[in-house]
Structures are given as structure tokens and as C-alpha cells.
């Protein structure tokens, strides 16, 4: 419904997009190049590369606050807080042009063929409305736009063409991780990352600084402020930053008419548009739909009752392993040096269904490996002060700094309606808009999966000659992948959007982020999020004459 008390400004445009992260950027570029008038509203700002602390001595100190992936820790005005008091995992995100990828490691994967067919193959979750083969052409095009480095030929996937850029060096930590996997007879492969070894368009060559997850000060990690926005702006797209959308408006016919947002001065504005596309991530998108719909308590586009439900966040564990040999393990990139899909496919003899992806990463600087600050990933089970400080501090740091690797274990969590995003009853953002509340608990399947994989991971690092290993599970600060909260499907009674991202209820409202995933896979989702956005935007462009609008 239309709000009576907002400033009505700006002419109607073809498309308004909420969010300038990975998927919103893809949609904006495609639409602008096709001649659509398109405006993107982004609640954050343009990245300030000079502010990224990676090249300065205080990197580890500052990175744990201003560039922490948890918006509750950053407490920035342009973020919104999240009530995670009823969640086992904190959702992680970043508001800005480039979105949460600003603070990601650039780990880049395709979903596996079986990920699209979990219902058929394993009797769990839901099949996707498309297949691996349907998505591959879009994945490959996005890889070229992004500048992905990698090595083709991985036997864990069907054959594929070469990556646009050669794989990054796996380094000594990659070699050490691979040694353990080879001794166990298990799968591994050189990492694929959105980090170019040589300059790619506006993205500089990686210099292995190793600070990818606090923003790359060298401009050498692919984010859409570099890969997409220069071209989108040149093609005529308009981008408004510090614009927080609080509602999608609809008319009596049930069609979207535009969005209401608060500009950088806190002044309410309205952007009218013939089509609304929401790309605000698996938490922000259902939050916006639940905030919309006028007096309808269930929010907008929610006749299925599934808006906000089926939240998946990829429960995570890690194993730090130390070795006597120098591994230069402070050195970057902080993308994946190698990955393993040995335990990605279902084997019911393990006591769970679906599986995991492992990624081998550097272990960081001295403060991080000391284990005394931050999320205390690397603390022994007994965890007393004496183990962390005094002589032990020096021993721990000397043993680990430059001599250790970290295996991250990403678990495919299955969709469950009880895991969900709702609106908080008391927490608000800096504009007074209700914040999201997360309700999430690990399933027994996820717990079994992670425990099994931790045991296997320890076997691998011991086979590689580890002199120490520390495991971290569960890890609260691990909700990087926010998926499933506006599921796509063919049946309007069991899904929020169709396979093209179009709302079943509001035919000129689209969702093009990870919210639409029916299942989560175990792999990093950004590539698939962007490929889906490209596929669905091109469909929208192709069917422009048939598109209903207010």
C-alpha cells in the first residue's frame, strides 16, 4: 500500500534495485546495457580503499572492529543490527557497494550437479527448478566478468572450459594440506578464487598481502565496485548510496509501484518504478518483505508463508594445524589455496546426508594465531589463562606463526522452516526501522556431519605431519552464507518466487539474491548468486513486453 506521508520525488523508472552487492550489481549492469532506466539504492557507501588496514601494522587490531564481518560488532550507522540471541550462528554481512563480498575471501565455486537434485537423490530438501547444466553457461560468463582464477580438470566436477585466469599459487600451506590429503587418498584441488594473479580490467594483480577479509587495500580482490559498477554507470545506471529502503509499495491491483527509502539525511523519499528487484541478502530481503505489505501482518509476497523461513547459514568448523617446516602462513591470498570435495556427496554409512566442502587457508598474523583475542578460534579445550599467556604465549606464537594452516569445513545445512528471519520486537536500526531477528539451531544432521568431518580433517593434518592441531566448533562468527529465506519453486503454495526470481504474488517484484536457494549446497555461493541474477535479469529483459507493471 502507498504511504501517505513521504516525499514523492523522481520520475517513474523502469527498474529499481535494492542493494548494490554481487547480484544487484549484475542486474544493474545487464539492465543498463539493455537500455532500461535503472536506479540502485544501496544503504552503505562506496568502498574507501585507503581505509582498509591490511598494509598497516595495526591490521589485526583494527580489523576486529571497523572491518569485522558481524554488523553488531561494527555498529556502523549504515548497517542494521541483527538480533541473534536465538541463533547458534551470527549472520555476517557488510553494507556497501560490492556488498558483503567487500569482506569475503573471494573463494569461488560452482554448485555440484547433485546440489540441484537433493530431493531426487537423497530424499531431503527440494530439487532446484534448474540443473547444473542449465546454470553452467551463466556461471562461465560471470567468471569472465568477475575475473576468476582457477585450474580446470577437477574430477569432482563435470568437464568445464579453462578458467578466465590461471590459478593462484597454492603456496607451501597448499602443498602441506595436499600432502595430508594425498596420504589419505582423498580429493583436493588448487583453489578457485575471485582474485586475479594478473590485472583483470579494473582489478589489480594479487600481491599476496593476505588481508582479503578486511578489504583488499591493493584493489586486487574482485568486488562489483570494480568488476561491474564502472561499466554499469557508463551504461547509464544510477546508484544512490546511503539509501535505506524501508518498504516496497504496492497498489490496489497488487502490483509494486516503487520503494520508500531514507536518504543520507534521513529524509524519506520514494522511487517509483515499473519493476522492483530486491538483492538485499538472505536476511535483508525477507526483512524488507516483512516490513512491506501495509497492514498485512504477513508482509508482502508471502501467501506461501515462507518469507523468512528455511534460513540456511552453512555451519562451520575449522582445524588449525602447525608444522615444524616454515609455510609462510601469514602470506596471502586469504582465498582458498586448495579445496576438497572428498566428503561433499552423500554417503549414508557416515550417519548423515549431504556433505561438506573443505578449504585450506593461511592462518594469519601473530595476534590471530596467539588465540588470546577475537573469537578465540585457536584455544585448547581447557582454555585456561595459563595456556594462553606467559611463556605459553611465546611458545604458541612461535609454533604457529608462519608454520600453520587452517582447514575450514563448510557444512550443507538443510532447509527447516523453524530456522528463520523475523522482525525484532524491540531492536531497530539507526533510522528506527525494526531490525531482523534470527532464529537458528543446528540440526542433528549438521552436527553429525561436522563432527565426522573434523575427525577426518584431523586425520589428514596428522598424516601431513602436524605437531599440533586445534579444532573450533561450533563457531558463532561464521554466518557468511545467508540462504533460502525466499525460496524459489514452481508451486506458489510452497515457494515465494518462481525459477526466474519473480514473486508468485506480485508479478513485477523480483528477488535475485541467495534468498531464493532451495538448498544450500556445501560450496561458497557467490558465483551461483551472481549467475542466477544474470540468468533471471536476461529473462526479464527478453520478456520485457510481457512484463506486468503498475
Amino acid at each position, binding site marked *: 500500500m502507498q504511504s501517505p506521508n513521504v516525499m514523492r520525488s523522481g520520475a517513474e523508472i523502469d527498474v529499481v534495485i535494492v542493494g548494490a552487492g554481487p547480484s544487484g550489481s549484475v542486474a544493474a549492469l545487464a539492465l543498463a546495457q539493455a537500455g532500461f532506466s535503472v536506479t540502485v539504492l544501496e544503504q552503505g557507501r562506496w568502498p574507501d580503499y585507503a581505509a582498509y588496514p*591490511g598494509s598497516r601494522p*595495526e*591490521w*589485526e*587490531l*583494527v580489523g*576486529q*572492529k571497523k572491518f569485522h564481518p558481524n554488523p553488531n560488532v561494527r555498529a556502523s550507522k549504515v548497517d542494521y543490527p541483527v538480533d541473534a540471541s536465538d541463533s547458534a550462528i551470527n549472520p555476517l554481512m557488510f553494507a556497501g557497494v560490492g556488498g558483503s563480498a567487500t569482506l569475503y575471501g573471494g573463494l569461488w565455486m560452482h554448485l*555440484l*550437479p*547433485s546440489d540441484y537434485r537433493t530431493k531426487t*537423490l537423497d530424499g531431503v530438501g527440494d530439487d532446484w527448478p534448474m*540443473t547444473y*547444466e542449465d546454470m553452467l553457461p551463466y556461471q562461465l560468463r560471470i567468471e569472465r566478468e568477475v575475473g576468476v582464477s582457477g585450474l580446470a*580438470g577437477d*574430477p*569432482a*566436477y*563435470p568437464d568445464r572450459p579453462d578458467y578466465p585466469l590461471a*590459478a*593462484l*599459487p*597454492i*603456496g607451501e600451506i597448499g*602443498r602441506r594440506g595436499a*600432502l595430508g590429503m*594425498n596420504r589419505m587418498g582423498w*580429493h583436493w584441488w*588448487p583453489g578457485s578464487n575471485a582474485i586475479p*594473479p*594478473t590485472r583483470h580490467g579494473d582489478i589489480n*594483480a*594479487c*600481491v*599476496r598481502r*593476505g*588481508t582479503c577479509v578486511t578489504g583488499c587495500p*591493493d584493489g586486487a580482490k574482485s568486488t562489483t565496485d570494480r568488476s561491474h559498477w564502472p561499466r554499469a554507470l557508463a551504461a547509464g545506471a544510477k546508484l544512490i548510496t546511503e539509501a535505506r529502503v524501508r518498504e516496497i509499495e504496492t497498489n490496489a491491483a497488487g502490483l509494486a509501484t516503487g520503494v520508500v527509502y531514507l536518504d543520507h539525511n534521513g529524509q524519506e523519499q520514494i522511487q517509483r518504478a515499473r519493476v522492483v528487484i530486491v538483492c538485499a541478502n538472505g536476511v535483508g530481503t525477507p526483512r524488507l518483505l516483512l516490513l512491506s505489505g501495509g497492514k498485512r501482518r504477513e508482509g508482502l509476497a508471502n501467501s506461501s508463508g515462507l518469507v523468512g523461513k528455511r534460513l540456511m547459514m552453512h555451519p562451520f568448523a575449522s582445524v588449525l594445524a602447525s608444522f615444524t617446516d616454515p609455510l609462510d602462513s601469514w*602470506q*596471502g591470498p586469504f582465498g582458498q589455496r586448495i579445496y576438497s570435495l*572428498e566428503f561433499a*556427496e*552423500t554417503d549414508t554409512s557416515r550417519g548423515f546426508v549431504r556433505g561438506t566442502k573443505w578449504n585450506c587457508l593461511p592462518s594469519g*598474523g*601473530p*595476534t590471530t594465531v*596467539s588465540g*588470546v*583475542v577475537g573469537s578465540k578460534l585457536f584455544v585448547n579445550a581447557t582454555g585456561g*589463562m595459563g595456556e594462553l*599467556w*606467559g*611463556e605459553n*604465549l*611465546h*611458545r604458541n*606464537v*612461535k609454533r604457529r*606463526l*608462519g608454520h600453520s594452516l587452517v582447514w575450514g569445513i563448510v557444512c550443507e545445512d538443510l532447509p527447516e522452516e523453524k530456522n528463520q528471519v523475523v522482525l525484532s520486537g524491540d531492536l531497530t536500526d539507526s533510522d528506527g526501522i525494526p531490525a531482523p531477528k534470527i532464529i537458528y539451531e543446528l540440526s542433528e544432521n549438521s552436527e553429525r556431519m561436522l563432527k565426522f568431518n573434523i575427525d577426518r580433517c584431523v586425520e589428514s593434518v596428522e598424516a601431513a605431519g602436524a605437531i599440533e592441531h586445534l579444532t573450533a566448533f561450533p563457531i558463532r562468527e561464521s554466518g557468511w552464507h545467508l540462504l533460502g529465506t525466499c525460496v524459489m519453486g514452481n508451486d506458489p503454495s510452497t515457494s515465494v518466487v518462481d525459477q526466474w526470481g519473480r514473486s508468485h504474488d506480485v508479478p513485477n517484484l523480483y528477488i535475485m539474491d541467495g534468498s531464493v536457494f532451495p538448498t544450500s549446497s556445501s560450496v561458497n555461493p557467490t558465483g551461483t548468486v551472481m549467475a542466477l541474477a544474470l540468468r533471471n535479469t536476461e529473462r526479464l529483459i527478453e520478456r520485457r513486453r510481457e512484463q506486468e507493471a503498475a
Partner: protein
Amino acid sequence: MTALTRNADHLLALADLLIPACEGMPAFSAVVGVDDIALCLELRPDVAADFERAIDRPWQEEAVSSALQALAIEDAPALAAFGLIIVSAYYMAPRVRESLGYPGQVAVPIRRGDAVHDLRDDILAQVVARGRRYVPTPQPSH
């Protein structure tokens, strides 16, 4: 006089207990001064109040260890802030980094051939030799 300078001796004694000289590494007070701590607090003003509580507590020289234990029990945020600032200041100190052989997060450009060199000894061969690992897309039943 700030809490930092007023309690400098106390602060350094507490910090030396947590970061003593051993294993070839210098004690905290040998490489970090009050100015360095002030810089860290400027960089993390969000923990300044917690940090000040940690160093403003009544303290007797012979009971540094028990003072820390009491802090852990009675004011965990203060101890966390204290730990964060002193460990950060310590590992930012050039002499400490030199002792560890840690150059910091420096730029190391990738050279042509690095990636191929890292895969030497044919380490991928056995992965490839195991053959296909994936479950293909099931064919629709008709």
C-alpha cells in the same frame, strides 16, 4: 594526568606477567611504552573504557597474578580489552616482529611460474587418477 599515565607502572607490571621475557622474546615493558598503548587505544576507542577499568583497579605489587585472576572472574570485558590492547601493541612492535621473523602483511607479487612450481612433483596426479568424484545430474524419468 590520564588513567594511562597514572597507572603506567601497574599496567606494565600486569602486562609483563602476561608477556614475560622468555623463549628468546623480550618482555612487554622492554619493547612497548605508554605512547604505544595510547596509540592502540586511539585505534580502538570502543575498548578504552573497559581497558581503563582493568588498570584502575586496586593492586599490590606482590599480588599481580591474583589481581589478574580476580579480573577474569569479576570483569571479563575489562580483561578482554586489556589483553587485546597489550597483545596488539606487543606484536606491532618492530623489535618483536624482527625477533619472530615476521615481516608483517607485506606485498609479495606473484611471479610467472609460481603456480606451476607449487604443483611440482606431480602432486595432483593421484587425484586425477582416482577419476570422477561427482554424482551426475539424474536423468528425468518419463
